[in-house]
C-alpha cells in the first residue's frame, strides 16, 4: 500500500511471515538506523535478528539506498528521503 511521503523498504524473505507476506513496507523517512527502529516497533524482535549485540548489522546483511551500498555512505547514519527505495538484502552464498 503506497503512503505519501514514505520510504519503501524491501524486507528479506526470512521476515515475510511477520509482514503478512508483503515484500515491501512503507516507513517514515529517517536514517537507516531509524528505519530499523521503526521496523522493530512494527515487528518486535526484528532488530535482534539483523544486528549483533554491539548494534552492528550482521556481516551478511547488505543495505542499499536506491542503488548505493550504505556501507560506502554513512552506514546506519545514512539519511533517506521521501521516495527512496531501501533494500535489506541477505548475502546469497554457499559452497
Amino acid at each position, binding site marked *: 500500500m503506497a503512503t505519501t511521503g514514505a520510504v519503501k523498504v524491501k524486507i528479506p*524473505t*526470512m521476515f515475510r511471515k511477520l509482514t503478512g507476506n508483503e515484500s515491501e513496507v512503507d516507513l517514515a523517512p529517517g536514517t537507516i538506523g531509524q528505519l530499523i527502529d521503526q521496523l522493530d516497533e512494527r515487528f518486535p524482535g526484528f532488530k535482534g535478528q539483523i544486528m549483533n549485540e554491539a548494534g552492528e548489522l*550482521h556481516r551478511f546483511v*547488505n543495505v542499499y539506498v536506491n542503488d548505493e551500498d550504505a556501507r560506502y555512505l554513512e552506514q546506519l547514519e545514512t539519511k533517506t528521503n521521501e521516495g527512496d527505495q531501501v533494500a535489506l538484502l541477505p548475502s*546469497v552464498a*554457499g*559452497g
Partner: protein
Amino acid sequence: MTGLRFPRELADEMVAHVLEGRPNEACGLIAAQDGDVVHVYRMTNVSASPVRYALDPKDQLGVYRDLDDRGWELGGVFHSHTRTEAYPSPTDVREAREDVPYVIVSLAAEPATIRAFRIVKESWSADDGEIEEIPVEVLG
C-alpha cells in the same frame, strides 16, 4: 512447503549455465509463481571458485527489482556442486539466509541431478539449520 516445478526448457537453461561455469561452481536465481518456475536468472559467481559461490549484492538487487516489476516472486537460489552430490554442504547451511528453496545441481555424474532444499534456522544469524528436501519436478 510445496515443490518447485520447472518447465523443461528452464531446467535445461539452469543446467546449461552451471555446465558453462565449470570447473567453478555457478549460481543463479529463480523466479516463480505459485511454485511454477517462470524464469531462470544466470548470475556471476563472484567467488569464482570450484568450492564456493556468492552473488554480487548489486546484481542480486537488480534481480529482486526485476521480480517486483514483473510481479514474480523469488522462487529459489540455485548453484552447482561440480564433484559432489546435490545435497547442502555445511557451507550451504551456514550461509543460507533466504527463506526460499536452495536448488543444487550436481554435475558429479551424467545426467545432472537437480534437488531442492529449504534450510530452516532458529534465528537469521544461526550457523546451523535443519535441512528439508523439497520436491522438484521437471515438466515436459
